[in-house]
């Protein structure tokens, strides 16, 4: 089993605001992230798929194909957009790193399942180089790099 990761970047703006809370509580929980005009990040999207290399091509998946899927399903929709105002997933869901990772998973998984090859293993979204979130799907599978080696997988 090989885990293969493709990385891409997109730039978008967002802010955090829970409509059912008072302004004071939004300020208290979200701090400056609640400024209503939003702010932006250069996000990094890492998509990891898992599978065995094809005996003919040696590929887990064709990286050009994966690049095109990421571009078509995610980047073309999110790049240079305001996530709260323009992206349907975040109309009522907070566009945190966690939820962006989950939304990216939902956008990418159908195309990856349809290709009938590797499975989607992990989505990691960096908001800055120091802040990131990861989603491993609803039926989360062990993603412990050492587990197989230790005979636990």
């Amino acid at each position, binding site marked *: 089993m090989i885990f293969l990761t493709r990385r891409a970047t997109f730039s978008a703006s967002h802010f955090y605001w829970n409509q059912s809370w008072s302004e004071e509580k939004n300020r208290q929980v979200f*701090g400056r992230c609640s400024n209503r005009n939003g702010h932006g990040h250069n996000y990094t999207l890492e998509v990891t798929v898992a599978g065995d290399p094809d005996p003919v091509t040696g590929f887990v998946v064709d990286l050009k194909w994966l690049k095109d899927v990421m571009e078509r399903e995610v980047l073309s929709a999110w790049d240079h957009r305001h996530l709260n105002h323009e992206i349907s997933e975040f109309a009522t869901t907070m566009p*945190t790193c966690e939820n962006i990772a989950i939304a990216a998973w939902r956008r990418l998984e159908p195309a990856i399942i349809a290709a009938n090859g590797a499975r989607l293993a992990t989505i990691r979204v960096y908001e800055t180089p*120091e802040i990131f979130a990861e989603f491993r799907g609803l039926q989360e599978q062990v993603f412990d790099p050492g587990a197989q080696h230790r005979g636990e997988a």
Partner: protein
Amino acid sequence: MTAYFGRRYMLSASHRLHCDGLTDDQNRAAYGKCNNPHGHGHNYIIEVVIGGPVSPETGMVINLVDLDAVVQTQVLNRFDLANLNLDPLFTAQVPTTENLCREIFRILLNALPADPPDLKLEYVRVEETENNFFQCFKL
């Protein structure tokens, strides 16, 4: 729905790899230049990943302000700009980055906020330089 939140911190510290149970020659053979008598330092990157349900109210696994507070008080205040060999954790064990990684995992395991519930320390990763790093998933 379970997701993982990760945060990277930096601390600068010095250490000397030296085992009292070994002779000088054995120490030199085991640790090479890391055994130089006055020690040396690194800018360590501490990556902390927390797993847990995503709160429908906040969209977060953990508020990074809360995680920052724990890491600042428990880890950075203790080890940043310090000599690791002088910390009581490293009187009986060599302050290799393996051991530092495991000790930080142990410290954070006992210090995670009780709220929200169901938080899990997924792993601690310590990068000693750009070219080597260590990860602890469990004790």
